[in-house]
């Protein structure tokens, strides 16, 4: 069983603000973290490894400091790490990112399953996983709550609009994983981190993975960001303060006015 897990380093989204004058993101003091969905994907993959054996490879694309999320995967139990890092990748949208990751995964070798987070908290697109699956020509199961193995096949419980379904897929297949309820991510201990710095780790450039440069970076990306700006603010609420009884009457009046209740 060979599993590849795709991880991304993201800024802790809740703290990102925009400078109203320049329109640039204020990133100072915003810590970088592993995308929480990827953390869940990683733990699902490592659970399978623990139960059924096999080899887990962690791959990411990003600047050199993105090594941090790859090494986190190694510290948690993955066997090998790969970082796709090259100026040629800079500015890639989800299409180009999927293309590069698919090339990287192809270079890793025979793969039975690919695990991705359902989406990344900085972009929330949920496009990279399916993009990789299409590039590699393998099926996908998106929005998985949990993936397990039964015999030679994978069984996944996936979220659908208004409920869930249980699906079965033959390898090779790509899963995108959401963060399970009450997910308590595991963090590595000091000796695990120390050991992880000695596990096999590779930095691959665009050339290493045989990616064609015209598909990469800003130029290769079919989408372009034309403007970023702060979300529009609504007007302040019309405020009411009074006794609980008065407050209830006030709310009833609003409901009557909107014809949610009769007079």
């Amino acid at each position, binding site marked *: 069983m060979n599993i590849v897990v795709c991880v991304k380093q993201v800024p802790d989204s809740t703290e990102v603000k925009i400078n109203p004058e320049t329109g640039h993101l204020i990133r100072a003091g915003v810590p970088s973290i592993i995308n929480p969905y990827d953390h869940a994907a990683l733990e699902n993959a490592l659970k399978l490894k623990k139960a059924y054996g096999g080899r887990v490879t962690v791959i990411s694309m990003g600047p050199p400091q993105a090594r941090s999320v790859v090494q986190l995967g190694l510290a948690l139990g993955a066997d090998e790490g790969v970082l796709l890092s090259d100026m040629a990748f800079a500015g890639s949208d989800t299409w180009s990112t999927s293309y590069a990751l698919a090339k990287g995964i192809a270079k890793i070798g025979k793969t039975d399953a690919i695990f991705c987070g359902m989406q990344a908290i900085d972009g929330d697109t949920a496009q990279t996983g399916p993009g990789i699956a299409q590039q590699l020509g393998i099926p996908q199961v998106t929005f998985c709550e949990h993936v397990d193995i039964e015999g030679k096949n994978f069984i996944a419980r996936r979220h659908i609009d*208004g409920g869930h379904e249980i699906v079965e897929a033959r390898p090779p297949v790509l899963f995108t994983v959401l963060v399970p309820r009450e997910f308590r991510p595991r963090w590595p201990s000091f000796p695990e981190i120390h050991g992880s710095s000695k596990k096999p780790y590779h930095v691959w450039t665009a050339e290493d993975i045989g990616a064609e440069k015209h598909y990469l970076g800003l130029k290769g990306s079919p989408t*372009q960001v*034309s403007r970023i700006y702060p979300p529009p603010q609504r007007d302040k609420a019309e405020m*009411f303060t009074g006794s609980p009884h008065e407050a209830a009457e006030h709310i009833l009046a609003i409901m009557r006015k909107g014809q949610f209740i009769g007079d």
Partner: protein
Amino acid sequence: MIEVSKKCIGCGKCVPVCPFAAVQMVDRLAVINEACTLCGACVQVCPVKAITINREEASARRDLSSYKGVWVYVELMDVPGGHGKKVRPVTLELLSAGRRLADELGQELCAVLIAEKNHGWEKELGEYGADKVYLSEHPEFFEYNTDIFSTAVIGIINRHKPSVMLYPASIQGRDLAPRVAASIYVGLTADCTALAIRDGLLVQSRPAFGGNIMADILSPTSRPQMATVRPNVMKIDEPRPGRTAIVVREEIKIDKGLRRVKVLERKLAHDKAGTRIDEARVIVSGGRGLKTKEKFRLLEDLSALLGGVVGASRAAVDMGLKDKTHQVGQSGTTVSPKLYLACGISGAVQHIVGMKASDIIVAVNKDPNAPIFNVAGHGVVGDVHEILPKLIDSLKKKGK
């Protein structure tokens, strides 16, 4: 261009999977004819990777001006209780948004309907704005499947070349659209909350960083310009009774082998009243301030009296006060009821992005500085534990 290399071993696996009968075996080698739409179904099944699509040529070949029309992917949903399927309301939202874009461009609005069997849906689609319905019927379309549906959609796109294509940002749309985009090398913007035309290009606005910023995205060099659009964000225009759409039938062959993922079991959770939270007219929602499961039941009483559905903030779900299907927000469901009553919800950004499109928002919170009051139209400063029982009492008395 699509090419078959010398690696071809003549196994013939690619022949049945082609949806457009574009592959034949000639002298035990695969040969691809002009019916090919570059959908890639054959590439995926070839065991020796003998078939390749050179996208560079494919995109260079593109004459962008020949791509015309605004398309909307029609999502079908099961009618509760096993009564067949119906068009999901979000599709109508997309038709309303698409209609405006099509008018701006002076082009047609088309719906793409992939179904086991059409049930006269072109009438409904027409009333809500579609000029044309590309309809593909096949028994294998009995339920959504990534490989089968993406193959069909890619084929129809390659044949008819739309300029814009919109999908709902539902689970299905978000599963399908990136697959299509990856295959045909076009731009795709996720989760749009506003769409407009500027200089002939589709301007796609979307929130990023958990709703902390907005971004405008363009796809200037590829067609169709594709976007998924958040449900409950676009308003549905009044239907025009009697207006109908022309049906264009698309013949597509689907091989059973394309179904690589099988659904073993499906369960849908419905609220007691049978209304789904994203389609509710009234939502009574609670947050951390409710503190216990018992207190949360007050919301259910109130919601029952109003004929609404109960919602919950992420904090409330994490505390186990309500299950995840009721969660409103970025990581839950986006809603836009006529009335949203927020009780004891402070208003984290991730909650606000999921409910701010509601018509009337009433918020009750002890803290006068709670961010929820920035989006609410009506703010009530007070303790939900004291106000809710009074509200319920009054409504009960009225009912008698």
